[in-house]
């Protein structure tokens, strides 16, 4: 354990403190005991909130470091802790603990995967191409300058200009804590995201899903070869998949139950996902479109507020891009408005669809996560959960169609190298999100039967 690892852990403890303060504010916990039980969720909420805040503050030349993060934590705790019901009686456990034994056993296996990955992540250098040339460079530039500067974030010879700042800012916060750029220790922040994902999914969705099934789905995601292989490359695809999956699953649980706290949590994770990668914005729009389609009348107004909040979190980045004259260098969505372009480039859709499906079904990469999702969706339909399954399937179909549109609009960039380079990663969100939706869909049908 090095000093850098200790300092990175300290930064993450402060992110956890931000989350602890936010749990009561987002109505995710009402008593101190609930906060304690939901600490893993607090960690994920803290990471998402700090990342969103830091990504937007960077646009106005405010960098979040040792002082900034401490102030954020103190502010969140000061606002949140007084809202907790300190004198309320402790609620009893809703079910006998022995029923959780299988789930805890499966979670223990997931924890073993995460602990084993920590041994690699702590010593692995930054060697994968996008990991250092794009994400590492942007994080390093944010650490060196404190905010997005020209030409690194504005000129076409620098890569990934359109990508938002959530992940680079999160890593830049770590570097500010370390007092130096460290391309090795930074991998532990990616692992922290994975730990937060598993812990948050468990604590957030446990009330809305069968515990063992939820734990099994989390294990299936963590054990898929693509998960740690891509995560240790310091690329943003698995982080965006985890954030979007949490957001979409929370949204599905809210559509079913209407429980307080689920919609704010979904909004936060969806906003964080949209600020991680441009594809994230596409997946978020698809999630809200599918949610509006199945929402009842009373749910549409809060859903609209959630959409507006997400938009407000993402809009500053696009205003900044416009203000600095940064345009997409590798695709133009305006192509999709020209019928002649669309007909003459139809072959791109066909090829992209073939290759995306091939990667979705590639067992050596995804470990048949698509099969888990398909069986889960079919099971939910068989059990009568039509509405939520329509939401989940609608989100997946819209997201997949959106990906095809991006590959369609990316001309004159050659299609095949683009697909070869990205198709195995752009599908991450569909797979992780699809699998995490399964326990929520099945849980909803069980609860409907119990009722």
């Amino acid at each position, binding site marked *: 354990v090095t000093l850098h690892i200790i300092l990175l852990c300290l930064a993450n403890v402060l992110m956890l403190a931000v989350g602890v303060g936010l749990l009561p504010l987002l109505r995710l916990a009402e008593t101190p005991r609930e906060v304690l039980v939901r600490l893993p969720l607090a960690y994920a909420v803290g990471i998402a909130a700090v990342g969103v805040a830091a990504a937007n503050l960077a646009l106005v030349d405010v960098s979040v470091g040792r002082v900034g993060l401490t102030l954020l934590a103190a502010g969140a705790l000061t606002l949140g802790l007084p809202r907790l019901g300190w004198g309320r009686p402790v609620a009893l456990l809703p079910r006998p603990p022995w029923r959780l034994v299988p789930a805890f056993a499966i979670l223990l296996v997931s924890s073993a995967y995460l602990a084993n990955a920590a041994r690699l992540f702590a010593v692995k250098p930054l060697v994968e191409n996008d990991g*250092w*040339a794009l994400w590492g*460079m942007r994080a390093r*530039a944010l650490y060196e300058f404190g905010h997005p500067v020209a*030409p*690194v974030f504005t000129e076409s*010879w620098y890569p990934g200009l359109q990508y938002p700042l959530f992940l680079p800012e999160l890593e830049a916060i770590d570097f500010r804590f370390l007092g130096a*750029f460290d391309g090795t220790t930074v991998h532990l922040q990616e692992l922290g995201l994975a730990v937060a994902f598993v812990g948050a999914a468990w604590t957030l969705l446990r009330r809305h899903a069968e515990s063992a099934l939820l734990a099994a789905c989390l294990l299936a995601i963590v054990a898929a070869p693509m998960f740690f292989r891509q995560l240790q490359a310091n690329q943003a695809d698995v982080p965006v998949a985890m954030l979007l999956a949490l957001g979409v699953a929370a949204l599905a649980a809210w559509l079913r139950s209407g429980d307080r706290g689920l919609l704010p949590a979904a909004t936060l994770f969806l906003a964080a996902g949209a600020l991680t990668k441009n594809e994230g914005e596409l997946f978020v729009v698809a999630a809200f479109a599918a949610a509006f389609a199945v929402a009842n009348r009373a749910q549409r107004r809060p859903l609209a507020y959630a959409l507006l909040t997400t938009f407000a979190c993402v809009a500053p980045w696009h205003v900044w891009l416009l203000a600095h004259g940064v345009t997409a260098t590798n695709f133009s969505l305006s192509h999709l408005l020209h019928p002649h372009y669309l007909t003459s480039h139809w072959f791109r859709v066909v090829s992209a669809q073939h290759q995306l499906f091939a990667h979705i079904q590639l067992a050596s990469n995804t470990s048949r996560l698509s099969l888990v999702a398909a069986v889960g969706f079919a099971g939910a339909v068989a059990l009568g959960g039509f509405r939520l399954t329509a939401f989940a399937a609608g989100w997946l179909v819209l997201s997949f169609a959106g990906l095809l549109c991006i590959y369609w609009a990316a001309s004159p960039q050659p299609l095949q190298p683009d697909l070869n380079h990205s198709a195995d990663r752009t599908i991450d969100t569909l797979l992780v999100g699809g699998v995490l939706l399964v326990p929520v869909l099945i849980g909803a049908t069980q609860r409907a039967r119990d009722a």
Partner: protein
Amino acid sequence: VPRRTYGLLDLHDTIAALGRYFFLPAVEVRSLDRATVVFSFDADPRVLGRRFVGQLRWGSSYLSRLSYP
């Protein structure tokens, strides 16, 4: 950096990407008039026709200072 194949990559683009990452907080500019330092990999900086105030050499690579910021 000369433009030629480098394995499956382009040598110029590869060295440029490495430079953008490793030389931070120095940033890449496209106009020689705005540059304070020129890094030459496997190329002679004299072809630029500029006077340098300082120069370091490693094998066929040069780090040439044009001016101080």
